[in-house]
């Protein structure tokens, strides 16, 4: 659009009011009027003489039926509006009621669903907890069974070893007694040089501390060697079979004693001195 100024608006004010501007002229004209209050006042003043032109027409009487038509049309419009109004309200109120009831029902339904889901969730949680407990119990039972099986296997192994050892003519044994760290503990170690086989049976051993295990130490003239590690059962009974006795002795001289100590799990060449069992003072029948 071409912008026009106030002067041009005032020059063309009458032409605008009697409809003498074409479309291309009217658009920027009206755009200017939207933005300029002074020019709107000018146009308002120009409208009156323009409209007065209509008073110059010769007066004619419209047909009497025209008034009846106009009146009837206005009445119809009124009736339509009136009919629309009462129909609109009940329909809207009914729609709103249905909507509110529907929303309330939907909300209640959702709430019930949520509560149901919550109950189900709680139930599933309880079931899961119960199942978890059952699984834990089963696991404990399995562990216990495994321990018992291990203990039984060890027991059988030690029984086999003892049978082999005690039937040998060079069988020897030594009794180990508890130290101050385990005064109730006691043990017996039997061995046979001919079979190169030894067996330790201990009882009343204290519970192991976390990350530790028991070691049987063979004490030689020139050092100590771990003959093996073992874990006692729940009753404090421990068993260990020692094989290849000659191999342990290599380079350390004569066997002079035995000891059982609690040691950290892992490789170690020396015991920690937390001795719980050691061989009793020589009683003659013990021939280490």
């Amino acid at each position, binding site marked *: 659009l071409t912008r026009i100024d106030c002067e041009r608006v005032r*020059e*063309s004010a*009458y*032409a605008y*009011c*009697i*409809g*003498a*501007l*074409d479309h291309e*002229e009217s658009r920027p004209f009206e755009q200017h009027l939207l933005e300029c209050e002074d020019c709107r006042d000018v146009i*308002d*003043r*120009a*409208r*009156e*003489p*323009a*409209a*007065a*032109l*209509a*008073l*110059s*027409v*010769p*007066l*004619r*009487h*419209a*047909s009497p039926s*025209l*008034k009846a*038509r*106009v*009146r009837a*049309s*206005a*009445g119809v*419009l*009124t009736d339509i*509006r009136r009919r629309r109004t009462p129909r609109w309200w009940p329909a809207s109120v009914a729609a709103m009621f249905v909507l509110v009831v529907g929303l309330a029902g939907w909300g209640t339904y959702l709430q019930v669903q949520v509560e149901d889901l919550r109950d189900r969730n709680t139930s599933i949680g309880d079931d899961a907890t119960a199942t978890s407990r059952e699984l834990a119990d089963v696991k404990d039972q399995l562990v216990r069974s495994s321990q018992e099986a291990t203990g039984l296997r060890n027991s059988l192994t030690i029984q086999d070893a003892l049978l082999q050892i005690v039937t040998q003519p060079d069988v020897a044994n030594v009794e180990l007694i508890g130290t101050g760290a385990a005064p109730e503990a006691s043990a017996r170690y039997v061995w046979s040089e001919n079979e190169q086989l030894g067996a330790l049976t201990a009882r009343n051993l204290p519970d192991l501390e976390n990350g530790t295990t028991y070691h049987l130490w063979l004490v030689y003239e020139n050092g100590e060697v771990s003959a093996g590690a073992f874990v006692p059962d729940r009753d404090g009974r421990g068993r260990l079979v020692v094989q290849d006795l000659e191999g342990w002795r290599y380079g350390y001289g004569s066997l002079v004693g035995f000891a059982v100590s609690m040691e950290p799990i892992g490789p170690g060449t020396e015991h920690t001195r937390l001795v719980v069992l050691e061989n009793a003072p020589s009683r003659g029948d013990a021939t280490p």
Partner: protein
Amino acid sequence: VDYTTLSDDELMERLCSRDLGAFDALYDRYGDLVYSVALKVVGDTYVAEDITQDVFLRVWRRPEQFDLRRGKFITWLLSVARNRSIDERRSHGRRLRHEALPSVAEEESDVFPSGSDLDDPALATLLSDDRAAVRKALEVLPPEQKLAIQLAYFGGLTQQEIANRLGHPLGTVKTRIRLGMQKMRDALEERRAEERRI
């Protein structure tokens, strides 16, 4: 309520409250004038009646479109009637162009009141003072200014169309319209001043 005693603005106020009595009163007051304007522009009684019906139903449906601050009700009503009539005339004119283009003489005779254009005697008193003042103002206008104004107002022609139709420069037509309307306004204001003095 005696609606005949109410002013135009009071009747329009009642119209906003859907008062059919006020609507009847407005039609009784201005129905024939609106019809006469429409008939002047379109020249067909049936079309003029349809236009009159449209104009009054618009007033009935949208009375809030009249803004009291922008002028008198009669000024607004006659503007609506004239514009609606011009729209119909232009629409009718487009249809006519496919059949036979009216001559300049026909259009000029159409917009100029002839000597036989007399008021219906039963309506002679309607706005008689105002109408007399306007006619008096038009009579004193130079014929070329009067012709340009009437071709625009009742014929629906733009300044450029008037210039083309009459074979006059566009600037001349613009000047004639501006000066003629200025004289119209001066004449009406002078009459109003005389009324105040009386």
